[in-house]
């Protein structure tokens, strides 16, 4: 088992490497089903699959945030256990497995470094506004595997300079202001790259929605 995980970690250099022989949409659908199976009946086989795919990635994410090897390993294990214990709160209709796992890893890391929880919308807030306008519907994206694959493609197609700021924002977890300093660019340039990138992702998703 250990051997297999080590090999996986060494062989897999990116999502597009030879390991990803499974078609991405199928792979994403499987991860959703695995999480549902864990939530429904603590399916250990499903957890092994989720762990083999995500544990090393979550650890990379934490190392990217500046944690050393040992603390990243420890926090990764804690995050994977949260996934094991709270999988019933995962809603496959609302988010891809990777989105749900990212939010858990991010929130747990914030909690760890800051000592207090990330502040989020409380979905049972009496004053939560639910009424949507026409504009919101345009903004609403289907959260199925095809949409997730299109999102991945949209990110791949971004011009290098836009991809760079999106990556830095994810990998370093720094604000756009800090990224501007890091890249020695005017803050306005970084803002417009982020806006263009998000716009590109949005329009590709919307445009391709029309094709289907």
């Amino acid at each position, binding site marked *: 088992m250990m051997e297999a*995980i080590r090999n996986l970690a060494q062989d897999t250099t990116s999502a597009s490497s030879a390991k990803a022989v499974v078609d991405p949409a199928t792979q994403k659908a499987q991860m959703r089903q695995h999480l549902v199976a864990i939530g429904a009946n603590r399916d250990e086989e499903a957890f092994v699959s989720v762990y083999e795919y995500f544990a090393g990635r979550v650890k990379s994410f934490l190392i990217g945030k500046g944690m050393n090897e040992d603390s990243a390993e420890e926090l990764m294990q804690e995050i994977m256990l949260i996934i094991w214990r709270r999988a019933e709160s995962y809603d496959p209709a609302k988010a891809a497995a990777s*989105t749900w796992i990212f939010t858990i890893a991010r929130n747990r890391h914030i909690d760890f470094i800051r000592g207090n929880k990330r502040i989020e919308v409380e979905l049972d807030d009496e004053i939560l506004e639910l009424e949507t306008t026409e504009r919101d519907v345009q903004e609403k994206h289907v959260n199925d595997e095809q949409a997730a694959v299109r999102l991945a493609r949209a990110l791949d197609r971004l011009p290098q300079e836009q991809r760079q700021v999106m990556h830095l924002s994810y990998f370093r977890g720094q604000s756009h202001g800090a990224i501007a300093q890091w890249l020695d660019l005017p803050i306005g340039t970084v803002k417009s790259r982020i806006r263009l990138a998000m716009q590109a992702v949005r329009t590709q998703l919307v445009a391709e929605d029309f094709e289907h």
Partner: protein
Amino acid sequence: MNISEQTIGIDPVSHHLNDETLLDYACGALPVAMETLVACHLTVCPHCRERNQLADNVNGQMLADQKPATIKLSAAELLSQARSKPAISVSKKTNAVGDKSVPRPLGRLLPGPIESLEWRAVAPGIKQFALNNQPRQAGAFKLLRLEPGITLSQHTHNERELTYVVRGSYRDEIGHFKAGDIADLDGHVEHKPIVGDEEVCIALIATDAPVKYTTMLGKIMQPFVGI
């Protein structure tokens, strides 16, 4: 602008978060004060909640694309360790909601209803209630209570200022901001907000750095006033 529309509150939120602020929020890059403000707006704005979901999806995809690090423990080993240890009790302690008429991320910071807070007068027509006790250099986090019709001094911002309108409204060079709206400003904006005549305006403010005033009176008031 139709007054009856404002008072019965059927206007949809019309000023939203910028993409870069939403991305900062999604990446966990905002300080607590700004995170709170963003969460307040998201509570009343389904449009920005959708956009926030997209930012989370983008980050989820980046996680999936990431090169995995070598891990020390197998899934089976982790589960067997977990069985022999009691579950880590994550502290669920959250503050009671002091005011249920405002978004909870703010309501939890208040000792009681917003109207009956111990507001401190800082200038004619302006009262404030501080939400943190950090030095001013670390940025402000406070509520402002502004009397109907008053005008604030012309000012600009060093870095970033987020304003969430809790009650009432104000108008400036950028537009008309009503309850639920967010003003997501940076250092390039110089503005002079005028509070709506109809009612007291209560605004939640978070800044990265102290506000820079461009008039003499403004400079004198600098320590006290956000927006």
